[in-house]
C-alpha cells in the first residue's frame, strides 16, 4: 500500500454521546471488508473504543506510548479476532490530552499510511486538543448527528472547525464532509416530534451519507463488544453497511432482494424476541 492510497477519515460530532465510537467501530469493521483498516482512539484519558470493539483485555501499549517512543506501533496495534484486516490503536487511559502533539500524531499517522488503506480516527467530544488532533490530518470527515437541537448545533460548530482548522483547509484543499444521522426515529419525525432527515440536512448543508435508526441492536452490540456491522442482522447493521457502501461509492445493487431479505430477518428477530 503506497501512502497516497491511504485515506484518513475522522468520525466527529462536537457533542458527546451521539454515537461517534459506535459509528467509528461499525465503519471500521465494514471498511475492513474492503481494505486493511485501523481505528484509532483519540480520546486520551477516556478510552472506550477498545470496549466497543471488544479488545479491552488485550491493551498493553497505547497511542501515547507510541508517540513518546515507549513502544513500537506494531506492539500497540491490536488485531481484531474476527477480521484479520481490522486493527485498533487504543488511547491511553492514564495520560492527559496534552500528550497528543501535532508532530507525534503526524508521525504515527504517516507510519499507519504505509500499511493501511483506511485510517479511522475516533474523535473525543468537544473542540479541544484531542478533537482538534483527530480532525487535523483528515482527508474526509464523518459528522455524526442526532436529530436533536444541541447535537445539530454542535455539528455545525465542528463543520466550522473542519473548514478553518484542519490541515486540508490550511492548504486550501477541500475536506470532504459526510453527514451521518444516528438514533433516528421515522415514526417520531413523521409525527412532527423529531427533526426530519431533510431538516437536519438542510440546516447543516453537507451531503447525507446515511441514517442509522434508533435501534436496540446498538446497545446489544456494545454490551458484547461487537461492532454493529459484525453483529447479528439488524436494521442498524443494514444502515451502517449502506452508509459504508455509499462512502466507498459502491452503487446499491439488487436493493429489491436486499429489501425482502432484511424484512424477513427483521420479522424473524421480532419473532425471536417475542418467544424469548
Amino acid at each position, binding site marked *: 500500500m503506497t501512502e497516497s492510497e491511504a485515506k484518513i477519515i475522522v468520525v466527529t460530532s462536537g457533542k458527546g454521546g451521539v454515537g461517534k465510537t459506535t459509528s467509528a467501530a461499525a465503519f471500521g469493521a465494514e471498511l475492513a471488508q474492503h481494505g486493511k483498516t485501523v481505528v484509532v482512539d483519540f480520546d486520551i484519558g477516556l478510552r472506550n473504543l477498545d470496549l466497543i470493539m471488544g479488545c479491552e483485555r488485550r491493551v498493553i501499549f497505547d497511542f501515547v506510548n507510541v508517540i513518546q517512543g515507549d513502544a513500537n506501533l506494531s506492539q500497540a496495534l491490536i488485531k481484531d479476532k474476527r477480521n484479520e484486516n481490522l486493527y485498533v490503536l487504543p488511547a491511553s487511559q492514564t495520560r492527559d490530552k496534552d500528550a497528543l502533539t501535532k508532530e507525534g500524531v503526524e508521525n504515527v499517522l504517516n507510519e499507519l499510511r504505509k500499511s493501511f488503506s483506511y485510517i479511522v480516527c475516533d474523535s473525543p467530544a468537544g473542540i479541544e486538543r484531542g478533537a482538534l488532533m483527530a480532525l487535523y490530518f483528515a482527508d474526509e470527515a464523518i459528522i455524526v448527528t442526532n436529530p436533536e*437541537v444541541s447535537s445539530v448545533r454542535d455539528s*455545525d460548530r465542528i463543520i*466550522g472547525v473542519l473548514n*478553518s482548522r484542519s490541515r486540508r483547509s490550511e492548504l486550501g484543499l477541500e475536506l470532504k464532509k459526510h453527514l451521518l444521522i444516528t438514533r433516528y426515529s421515522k415514526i417520531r419525525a413523521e409525527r*412532527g*416530534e423529531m*427533526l426530519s432527515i431533510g431538516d437536519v440536512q438542510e*440546516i447543516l448543508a453537507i451531503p447525507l451519507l446515511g441514517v442509522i435508526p434508533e435501534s436496540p441492536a446498538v446497545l446489544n452490540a456494545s454490551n458484547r463488544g461487537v461492532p454493529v456491522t459484525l453483529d447479528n442482522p439488524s436494521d442498524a447493521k443494514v444502515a451502517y453497511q449502506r452508509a459504508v457502501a455509499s462512502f466507498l461509492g459502491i452503487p446499491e445493487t439488487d436493493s429489491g432482494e436486499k429489501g425482502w431479505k432484511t424484512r424477513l430477518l427483521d420479522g424473524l428477530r421480532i419473532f425471536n424476541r417475542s418467544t424469548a
Partner: protein
Amino acid sequence: MSLLKFLRSGNRQKSANIARERLQIVLSHQRMDDKTSDFLPKLRNELLTVISKYVNIDKDQINVQLQRTGDCSILELNITLPTTEEIF
C-alpha cells in the same frame, strides 16, 4: 372536551418545527461568530503593524472587540498609547 382538545392540538405547533426555527436563528449567529473570530486576530495584527509605524506600542495595548446587538454590530478598538516621552 375531546373536541376542544382536538381543536387545540391543531393550533399547537409541532415541536420539530420549533426546533428547526430555533436552530436556524442560533446557527445564523454562530456562523457569524465563526467568521468574525477568523478575521479579528488578523485585523488586530494588521492594526498593530500600522500603528507601530508611527507610535511605539506593545502587542497587549491594542484591544479589538466586536459586539452585536440586534441587527447592529459595533467594532470597538481600544488602543492605549504610551506616555508622550515614550513616543519616538
